[in-house]
């Protein structure tokens, strides 16, 4: 006895909901622990009886974070760097992805693959030669230097993400536009990009989050507190072998908020309906 279409839909929705609950619990459990710890006094963090919710909740850790450390400064810097990196990544990657997916030229495949090869070298090894370059260009301790380094990190993969979407746009659309006198750049801007808004959203989220969370380069290329970003503040909570868990978790909780806000407000772009209806008819 086969399920009706409606029945089958309801079943898959129900299964989906169960899975969703499981996923949410699994995702949030460590976060709950982070928040929990950030609200505890040190005595309770190390307490002999571990509490699922602080018995003496305190905002002391957050207070310490904002009063005694450079956290607010780091927050500002992280915002500047992340926004700049995201904007530039979008531009560079769109141009690059279009060239690699639509324009024929010698070395196209090699160039595309080389973009990925750039990731085979982990930043834990690259940071020294990178520092040499950045210092040579006089960009040490500047926002530009950091953004520059991060672009090397985000652009290859943003380009690849966009390439994947660009190739799925039918060429006919672009050809039609070009016959009407549109330039390549115009095609990119007016036809291709609007159709790949979800991909652009993904690229933007990833660039933002990557530069928001990146630690190695930020620690090495920038030592000036006025330019430092949030992740570099974390080791300040670790002195020799003492971890100051309370303020550390507080800083995590706060620094997770901007990417989430960005995501929450812009995720509707991830779900556009104006995809390929343009092709029909």
């Amino acid at each position, binding site marked *: 006895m086969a399920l009706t279409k409606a029945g089958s839909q309801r079943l*898959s*929705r129900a299964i989906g*909901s169960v*899975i*969703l609950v499981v*996923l*949410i619990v*699994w*995702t949030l*459990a*460590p*976060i709950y622990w*982070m928040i929990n710890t950030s609200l505890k006094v040190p005595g309770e963090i190390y307490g002999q009886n*571990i509490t699922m919710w602080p018995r003496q909740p305190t905002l002391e850790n957050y207070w310490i974070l904002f009063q005694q450390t450079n956290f607010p400064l780091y927050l500002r810097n992280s915002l500047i760097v992340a926004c700049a990196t995201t904007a530039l990544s979008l531009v560079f990657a769109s141009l690059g992805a279009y*060239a690699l*997916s639509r324009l*024929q030229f010698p070395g*196209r495949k090699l160039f595309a693959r080389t973009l*990925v090869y*750039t*990731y*085979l*070298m*982990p930043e*834990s*090894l690259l940071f*020294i*030669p*990178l520092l*040499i*370059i950045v210092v040579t260009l006089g960009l040490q301790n500047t926002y530009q230097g950091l953004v*520059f380094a991060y672009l*090397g990190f985000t*652009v290859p*993969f943003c380009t690849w*993400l966009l*390439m*994947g979407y660009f*190739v799925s746009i039918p*060429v006919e659309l672009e050809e039609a536009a070009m016959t009407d006198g549109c330039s*390549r750049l115009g095609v990119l801007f007016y036809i291709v990009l609007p159709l790949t808004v*979800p991909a652009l*959203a*993904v690229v933007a989220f*990833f660039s933002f*989050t990557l530069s928001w*969370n990146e*630690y190695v380069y930020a620690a090495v290329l920038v030592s000036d507190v006025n330019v430092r970003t949030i*992740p570099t503040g974390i080791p300040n909570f670790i002195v020799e072998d003492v*971890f100051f868990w309370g303020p550390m978790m507080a800083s*995590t909780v706060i620094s*997770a908020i901007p*990417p*989430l806000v960005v995501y*929450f407000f812009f*995720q*509707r772009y991830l*779900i*556009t309906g104006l*995809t390929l209806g343009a092709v029909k008819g």
Partner: protein
Amino acid sequence: MTDNPGTAAAFPYDRKIPIWERVANSKRALAFMFLLPTTLVLTCVVVYPFMFALLLSFQDKTAGVPGRYVGLANYIELLGNPEFLQIVYNTVFYTVVAVSLKFLIGLTAALVLNQKRRFNNIYRTILFVPWAVPTVIASLTWLWVYDEFNGLLNVLFVKLGLVEYGVAWLAEPELAMWAIIAVVVWNGTPFYTMHFLAGLQAIPKEHYEAAEIDGANTLHKFWFITVPSMGSVFAITIMLSTVFTSTSIVVVNILTNGAPANLTQILPNFSFNLAIATGRMGLGSAVNMVLFPFLVVFIVILSGRMLRKGGD
């Protein structure tokens, strides 16, 4: 715009096309211009450091002191190291398992989030959270979660009566690698989820409707429409994620640093410990180069189909 060479000089075709117009209209020149910013950034930020690291692997070098070339000595030393094979095996196991799990969970999550539901945007934001947390922090948090005495996991297990007292998740030989993989999967799944979600959105509803008319059920629709349409999305995500996963040092560094008995040691950590902690930059670089050929082949295979589609 007609194409009639027979007519007289008054037509626009006879005018001399200025250089910049010729350049702008040539596909190669255009490609060059479009790729210029990317190329500039990458040359400085990646190509040079890359060459530096490659050359390093053939040198014997400590920081601050000029290196001297020793040919293949570093590689030979690696092959002679009994732990090396164990580390390579660990890396492969860890990468394959982590990527597979991230793929499965990410796809499931994307499918679920694609269904119509109220508050979908809240659920999506929640599932994005692990990615919003820097890996360093995620690792430190999970360090606490796994704690033998006060960790969330053990507290729960003891309260539920599953164990008498805390389990050492990160130190028991059978559990340690899985504990590491769990953290990597937790931190990295949103990458897949988001990407797949965007890809799912790009599949036109008409395809599904047409299939339903032909009598396809949910499974059919998934297998014959969703999966093929997501082909390049899958390929690209897996390719990039494999590279990122297999070169990331943070999780292992913070959670176990290779314990117990090198059962969780992976190549990038080995490389970092040698190059930076011990100061043997040449050897550390050589370790890194080992995975290279395999990853390159992997990248070529996965990118092959996608790159063929592109270009005019």
